């Protein structure tokens, strides 16, 4: 049983968050046991102004063989991601709305069901930092009181273009009860995925031990994946082929 947090990622890469070095043997140790289902599930949203410009993992794969048609033309709605922390396996359902055009495109229902909220600004673009109070208004209005908040200054790799100091970011977060702060750089492999670990760790630390059971996961499961807006469905027809 690992006593320190570890991040087991698909593909066999072990990235540990914190001071401990990666454990190459850890993946091998797990292979002997059947994979266990998730211990519980959390909903997380990422918000922030247009222009926060997170460099996604995808950009490193400039492989012409594959077409990101789905991403570029249709757009990603949400993702399921799994992290392991403190010996628990946690499924995250993540809505990443940062950088989307319409400020109000994110409905109140997204905020309400989120256990974690990551608020991103671009530390090379002052206007994205100046927008933060606008996002905080939405959080104050719609988010649950016990949602864990994390402020992230993105683009740490662009130090020469920095417009917002680390102190400015820290100071903003200090004004808000319980809000944590960090700076990130997708380019240097310290990307938003590691941010999730920090956020989930904070959520886990707050949870009383007797709640860490499947009862909790069941109650979170009862939340609809989409916000509680009834979709307008077309009349039912036999599902054969799509398109």
């Amino acid at each position, binding site marked *: 049983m690992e006593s320190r947090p570890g991040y087991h990622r698909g593909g066999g890469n072990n990235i540990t968050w914190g001071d401990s070095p990666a454990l190459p043997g850890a993946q091998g140790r797990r292979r002997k046991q059947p994979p266990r289902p998730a211990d519980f599930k959390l909903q997380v949203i990422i918000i922030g102004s247009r222009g926060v410009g997170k460099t996604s993992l995808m950009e490193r794969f400039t492989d012409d063989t594959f077409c990101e048609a789905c991403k570029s033309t*249709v757009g990603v709605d949400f993702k399921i991601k799994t992290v392991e922390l403190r010996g628990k396996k946690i499924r995250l359902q993540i809505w990443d709305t940062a950088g989307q055009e319409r400020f109000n495109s994110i409905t109140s229902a997204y905020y309400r069901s989120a256990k974690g909220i990551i608020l991103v600004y671009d530390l090379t673009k002052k206007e994205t930092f100046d927008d933060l109070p606008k996002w905080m208004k939405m959080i104050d209005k719609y988010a649950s009181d016990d949602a864990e908040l994390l402020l992230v200054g993105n683009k740490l790799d662009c130090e020469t273009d920095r417009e917002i100091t680390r102190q400015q970011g820290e100071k903003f977060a200090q004004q808000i009860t319980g809000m944590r702060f960090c700076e990130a750089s997708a380019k240097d492999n310290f990307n938003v995925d590691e941010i999730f670990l920090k956020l989930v760790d904070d959520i886990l630390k707050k949870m009383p031990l007797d709640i860490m059971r499947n009862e909790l996961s069941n109650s979170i499961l009862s939340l609809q994946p989409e916000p509680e807006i009834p979709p307008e469905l077309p009349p039912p027809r036999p599902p054969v082929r799509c398109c």
Partner: protein
Amino acid sequence: MRMDETLVSADGKNSRAVLCQRCGCRVLSVGTATLAKRELLLPSMKKKSSLADESNPDTELLVEHWLVHDMFTFENVGFTKDVGNVKFLVCADCEVGPIGWHSLEEKSNFYVALQRVRHE
């Protein structure tokens, strides 16, 4: 493409983990999905040339899929926005896709096309 029989274990579940073809991100763990045969038309995953012709169609008819009934069964997966009443599944890390299909009319069915993934 014929299904490799070693992909399905005695209990009818996937005997190997399902990974993204491009980046290796884990989509499904062992023993979490059943094999389903269903004709689904998915947009092409490979980059099409500027001239789409018969050898480079926009869509592909795929028949063999891994089926799960709960989206939280996935280790990692992305869902596109709605295309009509369908969401496509993509890799959660590199966002390549579509690797799968989900109809909003069938809330409990999530399909991952065998040909769009690789197996550990």
